């Protein structure tokens, strides 16, 4: 998959230090249209890796490049037309209407004649059309997540082959909504050839919804694997659990159930 053409996003020995903690070096490449899940225990450095890729943190050593150009050399607005980021926190200061929040995704495209139409379409694609006209701060957590997803979709709505980076989008949502939003994201990315990189906690979602897995432990990359049955032992080792495979049929990847390892 990767390496067949020049990569969309490439990390070359990129490192970051946060206080006394060091992250990396990360050497990874993301191909156009690829779907990658980032997995790892809490505090392993998943969000730091995503922030490196988003350009939110500059690497201390090594480099991060999009379309072969170092992120630091991109203009903020030009970068916004190639990649969107869905953050972990959904808070919006002030009582803004839902449409305005979604419309902010189109900031780098102003003046934007298509804005009204795209805001509506993005809301529908994120299954949030019914929230139009509401005030963002009065929405529930799950509804806010849908609106923020619509905002990132609006940002890459008329782009081809961009990148959508997602930081723990589904944490704290109910299972039905998790599947619904993951599906909406995947469909959106597939229709436009966007690469999708998401931090995921649910192993089954990672195995079923993504093509590749990046495993992160203790601030460093612990694995870069295809998301299939062969990845299960590595996942068990990553989280220090025993994973029991559950067969879901021939054409679907296996499910797993985690349990504490038996005392040896």
């Amino acid at each position, binding site marked *: 998959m990767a390496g067949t053409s020049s990569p969309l996003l490439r990390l070359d020995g990129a490192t970051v230090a946060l206080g006394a903690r060091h992250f990396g070096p990360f050497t990874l490449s993301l191909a156009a249209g690829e779907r990658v899940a980032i997995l790892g225990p809490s505090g392993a450095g998943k969000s730091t890796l995503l*922030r490196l890729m*988003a*350009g*939110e943190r500059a690497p201390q050593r090594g480099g991060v490049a999009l379309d072969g150009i170092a992120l630091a050399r991109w203009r*903020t*607005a030009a*970068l*916004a*037309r190639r990649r*969107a*980021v869905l*953050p972990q*926190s959904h*808070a*919006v*200061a*002030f*009582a*803004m*209407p*839902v*449409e*305005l*929040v979604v*419309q*902010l*995704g189109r*900031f*780098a495209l*102003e003046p934007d004649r298509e*804005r*009204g139409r795209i*805001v509506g379409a993005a809301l529908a694609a994120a299954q949030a059309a019914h929230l*139009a*006209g509401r005030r963002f*701060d009065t929405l529930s957590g799950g509804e806010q997540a849908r609106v923020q997803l619509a*905002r990132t979709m609006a*940002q890459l709505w008329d782009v081809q082959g961009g990148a959508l980076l997602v930081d723990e989008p589904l944490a704290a949502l109910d299972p039905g909504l998790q599947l619904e939003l993951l599906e909406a994201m995947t469909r959106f990315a597939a229709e436009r050839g966007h690469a999708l990189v998401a931090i995921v906690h649910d192993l089954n979602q990672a195995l079923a919804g993504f093509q590749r897995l990046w495993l992160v432990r203790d601030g460093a990359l612990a694995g870069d694997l295809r998301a299939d049955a062969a990845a299960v032992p590595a996942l068990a080792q990553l989280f220090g659990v025993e994973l029991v495979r559950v067969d879901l049929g021939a054409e679907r990847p296996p499910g797993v159930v985690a349990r504490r390892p038996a005392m040896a």
Partner: protein
Amino acid sequence: MASEALAWDGGGAPARAQRLVLVLAGLLAAALALAASTGAVPVRAADWATLFDAQRSGSAHVLWELRLPRALLAAAVGAALGLAGAMTQGLFRNPLADPGLLGITSGAVCAVALTLTVFAGIASGLPLPWRPWALPLAAYAGALLVCFLLERVARWLTPGSVAGLLLTGLALNALAMAVVGLCTYLADDEQLRSLTFWTLGSLAGASWTVVTVLLLALAAALLAGRRLASALNALALGEAAAQHVGVDVARLRTRLVVVVALLAALAVAWCGLIGFIGLMAPHLVRGMAGADQRRVMPLAALAGALLLVLADTGARLVAMPAEVPVGILTALIGAPAFLLLLRGVARQQGGQA
């Protein structure tokens, strides 16, 4: 622009905002007329007619030389404070931010106090035509200094914390006021008088020159606000997310700080400390027209102008023919209003204000 706003701002708010502009502008015009007509010397409709005649009546003279510049100064200063408040709240992503609370105004007062006392020798050594500009320039320098300190220090001590920001502002406020206290201690009698005038806040120093400069600065700030409004809206998403949608956050911050410091400094340089307008005007406006900065900024300017014209008229009338410094009046009304606002914000954020 207008049709776009109509299409996608939800819930009939744009129409309400347009009505609100008309209502506020009408009220402001009425308040200006009231301010110009009331006071120790009665002014009648006939006096307005002689305003541009070679031989003005006595009342028309009062109207032209005193009342009109003062009423317009009140409007301009109020608008500057309201706009500065809206911008500060957007910049710090908090409805409780205000140039006064954050110490920006105190920075300007501190610089003015130093200029009036410790550096009085330098100021009076300036060529005569430059002297009226010494105070505004010093005030601007003081306000800018506090703005940048606030950005740096709060970010360094308490990254991302709103409480940390407000507390840093409080500390800078105290520091600036301590320097003002020191200046008071060192001042001679005459310097003390002029210093007291600043700290109380008064619009009695109005002149057409001052009004013109302030209106020009206000126009420039409104234009800047118009250009920055969309980016300021995006900043409500948080700094990282604003950057992700394409806002150059560092540049936006610098620009806002420069404009806010200019507005706060000009208001302080000529009128002293007038508190709470910058806090209340944007809040009132957001309650009525929503939180879209493209509308909040011009409306907050209008609301600020209206509030200060009314407050100044009240300050002139309440103990006629003497007058109460308007800064005292706005604080008397503004402080309880701030407490009510705090209660509202705390409720909305579940006690996390």
